[in-house]
């Protein structure tokens, strides 16, 4: 028998004329995030014609749709009816995944700046980052980019005022209460603290994304030599 999640509130708002967002609260905590992924799963199972993509995030599910099939008001009503009945619960699969990281230096050019902003040493930033209880809350931004919640609150720094136009592949970065890992060279606004040689996204794998929502990553410090050596083998 399916257990229904019913203890939640939601709000629906448009994002342009082809997307609406269902928000399950303003707190990016694990309980809310589990509801988010359960609802996304429910929408997948229903496969409603006219909905072209369902993208779960921390506290929200973005629903991309074709306005030829239904307008915003009609879809919002339908989602309200659905949510009022409760969301079928899905047991999460939480895996432990080790992520080697070369912190600081050329691999993490913002490490010292983060330390200054947080009033601690660069070594302390590293230690606290490693010790934080990380959990993957969502994938987004670019293929395989994990948004990892659980960062030590003492390391909370905002995004950079002007995003960089190029952040190298494998860069481990922090912003607010999150850690992210750039799977490709892309622009990026987060604070760069290190780099991992592990490919985050590989179409050659059965499951191209290294990390999935719910996974529990454990960061391990490696030297620059170890980083360069490992990078040569991947």
């Amino acid at each position, binding site marked *: 028998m399916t257990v229904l999640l019913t203890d939640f509130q939601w709000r629906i708002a448009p994002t342009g*004329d*082809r997307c609406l967002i269902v928000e399950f609260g303003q707190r*990016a905590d694990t309980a809310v995030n589990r509801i988010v992924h359960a609802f996304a799963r429910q929408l997948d199972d229903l496969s409603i014609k006219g909905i072209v993509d369902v993208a779960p*995030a921390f*506290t*929200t599910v973005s629903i991309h749709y074709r306005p030829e099939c239904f307008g*915003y008001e009609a879809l919002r009503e339908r989602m309200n009816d659905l949510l009022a009945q409760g969301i079928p619960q899905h047991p999460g699969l939480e895996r432990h995944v080790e992520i080697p990281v070369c912190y600081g230096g050329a691999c993490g050019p913002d490490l010292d700046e983060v330390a200054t902003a947080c009033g601690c040493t660069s070594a302390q930033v590293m230690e606290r980052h490693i010790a934080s209880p990380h959990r993957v809350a969502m994938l987004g931004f670019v*293929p395989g980019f994990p948004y990892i919640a659980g960062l030590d609150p003492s390391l909370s720094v905002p995004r950079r005022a*002007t995003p960089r136009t190029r952040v190298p592949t494998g860069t481990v970065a922090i912003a607010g209460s999150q850690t992210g890992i750039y799977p490709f060279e892309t622009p990026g606004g987060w604070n760069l603290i290190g780099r991992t040689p592990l490919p985050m996204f590989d179409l050659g794998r059965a499951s191209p994304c290294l990390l999935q929502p719910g996974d529990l990553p454990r960061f391990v410090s490696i030297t620059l030599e170890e980083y360069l050596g490992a990078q040569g083998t991947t």
Partner: protein
Amino acid sequence: MSIEVLKPGALTTLQDLGRYGYQRFGVVVGGAMDEWSHQVANELVGNIDDEATLEITLVGPSLRFAQAALIAIAGADLSANVGGHPIPLGRAVTIGAGTQLDFGSRVHGVRAYLAVSGGFGVTPVMDSRSTYVRGGFGGFAGRALRRGDVLPIGSRARTVPHSPKRPTAQPVTLVGGPAVAAGPTHLAGEAVSLRVIAGAQWELFTPETLATFLTSPYQINPQSDRMGYRLEGPALQRRRDFEMISEGVAFGTVQVPPDGKPIVLMADRQTTGGYPKIACVASVDLPLMAQLAPRQAVRFRTIELQEAQALYQTRARELTELRKLVLDTGVGSWAVEST
């Protein structure tokens, strides 16, 4: 059936309407920047599904057709020609076997879309033939075209009344079928008016900032690309500091980083963003925006969501009409309803 790439052009990639269904993995949607011209080109050659077209940017390629093919080019005027004879935009033409198609100087717009009847024979990746260059997958070998590439042509098209019935010796034959007027263009130097729908964080900005956003011209920064258009103009001030929880974004979302310079998210946009969204460009105006060159100025004005969706539905009906025209009569003249 194939096309050989003699010169690749500045940035020529295969694009369809995008890779929807995988944003949960952070997989970028991508697809044609100018969805309208892409679809028009496909309809003109009778393609059944959303086939990939060649998105040709600024400087076009030189292509040699091994066999005769029915093609159509829509969008930017990049002086497509065969031996100096111009190929009209928005019309189906037959290119003869062994013929070389060239492009010349840019007349208007930025991106031309070349559809070939039957589509391009590349394997879809995650249900799409769009090229995602940054990720290195989709389209032709996951990258922009290079000299020496040979593009296979598929066979997934309807037989339209003007399909070539026998191999033609002519380099170019203007065949029957509707002619589609170019989409809305603009006069060089003039600020282009773009309609926007208020964004989720509209209220976060001061009333003065909102007035500035809706009255000041913003210039497209040269660092703009398929991912986003960075705009230069008066900085947009928030009422208060606001660290957002990252959430989904859409084609046309106008987000504002802390430096106050808005960025319009385009085809290769990230799947989620953490910057406040002041607005979203109406889908019907995105094809126009996609044709704007760096340093071009734009102005924004708001419309209601319902109106934006009604305009979008009208556009969709126009495409259906075009399909009927192509199939029923094979001839005629057809133009986008002016909006």
